[in-house]
């Protein structure tokens, strides 16, 4: 019995320490964050890591101490607790968790949520991303500054994947690559041609479902140049695992250059 008690307590203590080590050492790092809203999301996650970590350690310390203190004796020195004591003790987890969790949602998470879903600025770059089994079709407004009309009845792979009504239009279309300038707000209008997909850029901590019949929208402001992965985050069929793309974040002047080149290609 005594040996079992010691083994149990050592095991619990070891698991607690290993768990903390796992979070602190973070051997499985998420990709480095590269967007403004993403930084807000990371700050929520880090806040939760610290606060739930403290609760985890205190809870396990309490459990270990109680097991140590109240085992290996001959009889229980139990006296019924008064209702007042029970209520007072009950307040402790209730108030602690209320504080930790609602501060996380409202104080720390609120601004980042508004960043994601509030009204975008007027000068944001507008892009449309259309999801279909199993690729992302990216579209920019052409020289006329408008997205030209499309109809599902006109969709023909491969020459008219978006279903343009007037095939002789000036929109810039790309497959699986989203090119954007750095430090500029980008509004991404999302729609799907078939089943549900989800547009996700892990490095931007971005995710928004594409729902048939419901145009959705998301936005980001990239803060680093480079290439970042786009993944589909909602099961959409057998090719879901390979429904990937790339975001190319360029300096503003490189982006303008790229845009000019694309518009020239169309003419």
């Amino acid at each position: 019995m005594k040996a079992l008690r010691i083994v149990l307590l050592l095991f619990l203590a070891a698991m607690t320490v290993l768990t903390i080590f796992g979070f602190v050492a973070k051997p499985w790092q998420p990709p480095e964050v590269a967007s403004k809203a993403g930084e807000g999301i990371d700050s929520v996650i880090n806040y939760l890591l610290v606060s739930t970590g403290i609760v985890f350690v205190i809870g396990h310390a309490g459990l270990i101490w109680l097991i140590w203190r109240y085992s290996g004796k001959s009889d229980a020195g139990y006296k019924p607790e008064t209702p007042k004591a029970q209520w007072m003790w009950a307040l402790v987890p209730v108030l602690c968790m209320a504080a930790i969790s609602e501060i996380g949602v409202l104080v720390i998470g609120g601004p980042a949520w508004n960043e994601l879903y509030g009204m975008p600025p007027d000068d944001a770059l507008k892009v449309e991303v259309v999801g279909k089994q199993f690729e992302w079709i990216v579209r920019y407004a052409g020289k006329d500054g408008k997205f030209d009309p499309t109809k599902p009845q006109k969709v023909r792979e491969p020459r008219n994947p978006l279903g343009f009504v007037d095939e002789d239009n000036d929109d810039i279309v790309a497959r699986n690559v989203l090119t954007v300038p750095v430090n500029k707000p980008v509004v991404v209008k999302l729609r799907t041609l078939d089943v549900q997909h989800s547009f996700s850029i892990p490095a931007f901590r971005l995710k928004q479902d594409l729902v048939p019949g419901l145009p959705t929208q998301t936005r980001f402001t990239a803060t680093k140049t480079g290439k970042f992965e786009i993944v589909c985050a909602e099961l959409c069929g057998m090719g879901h695992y390979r429904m990937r793309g790339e975001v190319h974040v360029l300096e503003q002047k490189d982006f303008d250059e790229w845009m000019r080149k694309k518009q020239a290609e169309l003419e």
Partner: protein
Amino acid sequence: MSEGHAPSGFIRKYIFSFDHKVIGLQYIITAMVMAVLGAGLAVMIRMQLAWPDKPMLRPEAYLSIVTMHGTIMVFFVISLALVSGFGNYLIPLMIGARDMAYPFLNMLSYWTIVPACALMVLSMFVEGGAAASGWTAYPPLSALKEAIPGSGWGQTLWLLAMALFIVSFTLSGLNFLTTILNMRAPGMSLYRMPLTVWTFLISTVLGLLAFPPLTAAAVMLLTDRHLGTNFYLPDGIVLGDQVLPHQGGTPLLFQHLFWFLGHPEVYVLVLPAMGVAFEVVAAFARRPPFGYRISVYALFVVAVLSMIVWGHHMFVSGMNPYLGKYFSIATVAITMPFSLLAVNLITSLWRGNIRFEVPMLFILAMISVIGTGGLGGIYLGTATSDVYFHDSYFVVGHFHLMIGVVTSSRPLPASITGSRRCSAE
């Protein structure tokens, strides 16, 4: 009554029995058989994930296996064993009743589950394979046969099996509710019931309130698939260069209906596990559970809150972001009563005399995992962080800790090995 060598005696006693203990064991044995199947599916998933470059499973088979693993484990193992099985066995014993309120209905509800299990297993062998749209079966993937193999006959049989399961669970739930409210021994007021019975009562009510929307969702999906309705299918869907002739529906309707059940469902699973934990801790620490009444009130609060937070599965679904904010605030509010239950569980060791029998070891481990898994839920309930974690392995980790450890592998062995306590008639 004679031992009964005649076939009718045997069948009446062991097959179509009206006795709650036999029916409880029938449920548990059926769930264990389904658990072997579900665990086998899990092994196949892990094998393919361990060697991703080796084509062990066909792609459509992999998705079907993931779908069936989830469905079988949640509904046909945990709900079956923990709620129906242990509920049937333990409730009359714990409240001093001779049997359940409706023994014939009890037998019927078990024998409704058997064809449900059979249909679920059969769906793996039909043309196109088993359903492959995930255990959540979101349309249009699950509504359109062309969208993925497995959305043919497999998905239809899945829906029919789920409908039968819900019928059985509802019959069982009515039985539990009536038994607990009406058949307690004289002198056993509600506030003198064991905590386990309280958890069965509350999770039964939750199940009765929450399952009907899933029935509706499943029926509407069946009619969308076979009768040309358009509950979930909007216009403009293009598959294979063809525009499909649907209009007017929205997939979000299914998500709301599914998760309206889906969230209370997990509390239906976890609350009886907490109840069993309280019993085992009390028994092996030689003292009554700490804060009995407060725990009962906390159970009520958990149950009420669990019915109004389903949108936390849908934060990035295209739902209005104001709704997202509300669901987030309400979801993390559940941490208050739930952590209270966990703290009361730990405090039930205070001034006790702990004996390390096997059931106690299981439950002490379970308490630790309630900490890990439960705290992980806060990252998902906070809408902002959920944007990153939604549809990722973080969610898979959270619910496997809660369902796969807390709800299943801890109380099940604990109550089986601790069944000495319950066999005092």
